[in-house]
């Protein structure tokens, strides 16, 4: 039997490694972790995570740099080829910057008719230009686009109406706006770009502070790598010391890791097979929740101190199995609580836990040898005391009620590991540069692209009244580049024919020094514009304007969504009310409100699932255990969780999703402790072994998570603090509630 088990285990692990080497892919799309959106605003939030208009932008403050130094930096950065835009101030588009798609459609990108009056005004302007400019570029533009329609189209995309030619923060520090060629989600390419950025600016002797999603992502990855490595080494060391003190044998250190490692490998393989990509958060939360599996071998080691390991396993297996089954129920509940991310987490932990328990049961005993002869002990079976449970229940509830905080923190940004002062700084830079609001957008949706574009055009025209009312400063729409087919065709129909254009041109040329022959290309281009097909989304593919179009128009949930980006929204309530009066159902999306509601929904879903899980676990315990022991165990767990939550609330304030996950682990650990310490058939040496095991489990968990509690990363800090406090309270509660004489 043992041999068969070992073979199955070995083959299974090898298969996992083989499968992982081919199928494992990681994703960092936070959208996976959000629940099914229920409102239009939440839908936009989930659809647009990571694809916001400014996601590829890096803002760099160059404190103390003069204009020359800034210009040198710009040139050096532009030469790297890693950035599509490097700007120190609002761009003034030049002849070289006109994308082909804008040049060929220049007469169809605005409504003003090409008549004699317009041409006369344009040629008067060109005469004045002639006094100052000359050469190939000037002539080229004059010949092909005397009305400068192409440059006007590009200028309509600029939104910074200020006079300043350079962006500065309030304290006068120059700010550069840099757009990476690499997409925001490609962290490796972002890292290359950010490294090169830092190196170039460092070489230029500039004191540079870069900021932006890409920079944060890279810094975060580096910090997390460093922190995770250092903290896990420290935690492992702490764990090793605890285990050595508890068992005095080195092999134990390796054996203790076996079920956890096997479980993690199996869980990871299951997720990799069941989902297109494994989310980073799945791993982080998953390993935390799976941490309970480190306790399983410890129970075996403690009980195998006095007897043969196989016999010890047979004795503790019912309790171990019950604890694992209860935890499994809770983890499956998570899997069913909503988002794909939660499903991943559930699958990872459930499979991991199952495998860890099976490995402990069938593989481990063969490797464990008795460490000392059996000792006689006078320890009596546990007597369950309710005092501890009641005291903790009262204390925990009291803390929760009396704490001067909201119980839950709904701010999605608080889950972000980026320090708040960096986010505030980023916000300051963004204000200096005038990037679109990251909080508010207007969306228009329809299954029909043309309907969306027409509604956007109508809104674009009407928004001026909202601006005049002071609700916002400016806005950008996709239709400035991509008009609806109807509008495109209307403009096309309005273009004058050759004869009419020639007549208008001759009238306009009167009194100017320009020769009519210079405008042959212009007349020819207007003629060919009359047969151009309407612009489509694809028309902009590969051009410098592709990101603009992609940021303002996308397909989500089978609908086309037009995004109107907003600048300086002063009065969202008034804007929202005004939008309600507009046709085409435009909606003001407040990402902050939407994300708070989503986090609350997510937690609500998880808590509901856990409530159901609790009922199932109660039924399971009542089925397998005497009523008193079942009720005592479960209420001990509830008391521990309440007290831990209450203490956290008082000590650190409102709880977030990380605390919730950690509390879940605390509940699992607490249940195990309670179940083992309340074993009614334990007496003598066995009773002593159970207490030894629980003490070893508690100490090792408290040490390992105590190390994480010292981390500067909010997630690790929250997980560490919660589990360390919770473990100690669990230990105390179980110990106090199920007293027995200590071994001699």
């Amino acid at each position, binding site marked *: 039997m043992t041999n068969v088990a070992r073979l199955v285990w070995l083959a299974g692990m090898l298969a996992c490694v083989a499968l992982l080497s081919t199928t494992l892919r990681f994703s960092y799309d936070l959208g996976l972790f959000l629940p099914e959106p229920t409102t239009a605003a939440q839908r936009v939030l989930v659809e647009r995570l990571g694809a916001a208009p400014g996601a590829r932008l890096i803002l760099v403050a160059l404190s103390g740099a003069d204009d020359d130094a800034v210009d040198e930096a710009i040139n050096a950065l532009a030469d790297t080829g890693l950035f599509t835009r490097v700007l120190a101030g609002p761009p003034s588009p*030049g002849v070289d910057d006109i994308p082909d798609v804008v040049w060929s459609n220049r007469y169809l990108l605005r409504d003003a008719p090409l008549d004699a009056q317009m041409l006369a005004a344009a040629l008067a302007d060109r005469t004045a230009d*002639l006094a100052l400019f000359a050469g190939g570029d000037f*002539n080229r533009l004059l010949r092909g686009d005397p009305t400068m329609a192409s440059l006007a189209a590009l200028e309509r995309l600029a939104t910074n109406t200020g006079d300043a030619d350079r962006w500065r923060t309030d304290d006068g520090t120059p700010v550069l706006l840099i757009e990476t060629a690499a997409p925001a989600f490609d962290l490796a390419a972002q890292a290359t770009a950010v490294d090169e950025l830092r190196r170039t600016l460092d070489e230029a002797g500039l004191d540079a502070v870069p900021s932006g999603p890409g920079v944060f992502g890279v810094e975060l990855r580096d910090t997390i790598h460093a922190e995770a490595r250092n903290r896990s080494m420290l935690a492992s060391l702490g764990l090793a010391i605890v285990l050595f003190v508890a068992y005095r044998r080195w092999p134990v250190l390796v054996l203790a890791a076996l079920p956890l490692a096997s479980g993690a490998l199996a869980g990871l393989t299951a997720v990799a097979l069941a989902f297109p990509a494994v989310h980073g958060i799945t791993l982080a939360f998953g390993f935390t929740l799976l941490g309970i599996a480190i306790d399983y071998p410890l129970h075996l080691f403690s009980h195998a101190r006095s007897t043969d390991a196989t016999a010890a396993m047979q004795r503790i297996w019912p309790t171990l199995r019950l604890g694992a089954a209860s935890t499994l129920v809770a983890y499956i509940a998570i899997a069913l609580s909503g988002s794909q991310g939660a499903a991943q987490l559930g699958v990872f932990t459930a499979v991991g836990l199952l495998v860890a328990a099976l490995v402990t049961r069938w593989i481990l005993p063969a490797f464990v040898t008795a460490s000392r002869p059996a000792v006689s002990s006078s320890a009596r079976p546990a007597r369950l005391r309710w005092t501890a449970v009641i005291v903790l229940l009262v204390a925990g509830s009291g803390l929760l009620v009396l704490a001067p905080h909201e119980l839950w923190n709904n701010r999605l940004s608080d889950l972000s590991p980026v320090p708040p002062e960096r986010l505030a700084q980023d916000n300051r830079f963004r204000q200096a540069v005038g990037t679109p609001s990251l909080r508010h957008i207007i969306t228009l949706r329809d299954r029909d692209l043309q309907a969306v574009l027409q509604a956007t055009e109508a809104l674009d025209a009407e928004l001026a009244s909202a601006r005049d009312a002071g609700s916002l400063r400016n806005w950008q729409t996709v239709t400035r580049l991509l008009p609806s087919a109807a509008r495109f065709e209307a403009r096309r129909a309005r273009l004058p024919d050759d004869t009419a254009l020639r007549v208008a041109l001759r009238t306009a040329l009167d009194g100017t020094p320009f*020769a009519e022959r210079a405008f042959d290309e212009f007349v020819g281009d207007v003629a060919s514009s009359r047969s151009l097909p309407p612009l489509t989304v694809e028309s902009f593919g590969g051009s410098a304007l592709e990101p603009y179009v992609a940021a303002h128009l996308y397909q989500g949930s089978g609908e086309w969504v037009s995004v109107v980006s907003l600048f300086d929204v002063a009065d969202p309530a008034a804007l929202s009310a005004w939008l309600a009066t507009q046709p085409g159902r435009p909606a003001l999306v407040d990402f902050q409100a939407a994300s708070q509601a989503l986090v609350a929904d997510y937690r609500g879903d998880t808590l509901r699932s856990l409530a159901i899980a609790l009922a199932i676990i109660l039924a399971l315990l009542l089925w397998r255990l005497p009523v008193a022991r079942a009720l005592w165990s479960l209420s001990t767990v509830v008391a521990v969780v309440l007290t831990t939550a209450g203490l956290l609330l008082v000590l650190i304030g409102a709880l977030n999703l990380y605390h919730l996950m950690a509390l879940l682990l605390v509940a699992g650990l607490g249940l195990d402790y309670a179940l083992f310490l309340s074993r009614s058939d334990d007496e003598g040496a066995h009773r002593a072994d159970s207490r030894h095991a629980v003490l070893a489990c508690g100490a090792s968990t408290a040490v390992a998570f105590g190390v994480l509690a010292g981390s500067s990363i909010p997630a690790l800090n929250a997980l560490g603090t919660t589990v360390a406090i919770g473990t100690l309270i669990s230990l105390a509660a179980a110990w106090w509630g199920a007293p027995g004489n200590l071994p001699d």
Partner: protein
Amino acid sequence: MSRSINAVTAALVAWLACAHAVAAPPGLEEKLQSLRAGVLEEVAFREERHSDVLTKPAVFEGRLTYDAEANVMSKLVEAPVPVSMTVDERYVTVTRDDKTRRLKLSKRPELRALLAGFRGLLTGDTDALEENFHLEFGDLDFGELDPSGSDATWRLTMTPRSRRLKKHVDALLVDGNEQRVTAICTQMTNGDWQHMTFVAPPDTGQSPSD
């Protein structure tokens, strides 16, 4: 495209650093030093523009000003349309009918070339000139046959060094008499050319129409 412009700007900056290695043609140094002594803060000009986009040469009149302290040049066109252009180290500011447009100098290489030439002439800075242009300096002796009717006695021919400048400008011909520049002819690569003549203020005692 803008990347290549920036590359040129970077190259110009690099040249600034190693300009000392270049020796000026004989005689130029002294000429420029004497020109410098005669630098005027303001000079009236008349400019003819020749281009095949025009029916006949366009003529503009106005003043050029130079603030040596701030290194700011202005071209104030008074006729036929009032329009002005001020060039500082980085920007070209164009003002017409109280409306101001600002262009980055790096986007107007032909202006950059002109500017470098003017500045070098005005400040007598041979190095600055040599950085941007090949220089050829010689006496002019038109005798009775002087086609422009000017009293120029020397000519400095400036041909751009950088590929980017060469794309727009073939050469600048600077004509002068003693320590005074009398005319600058700019020959563009597309065949256009501009001829700008300067009228010295009366108190110098000299005038090209003498």
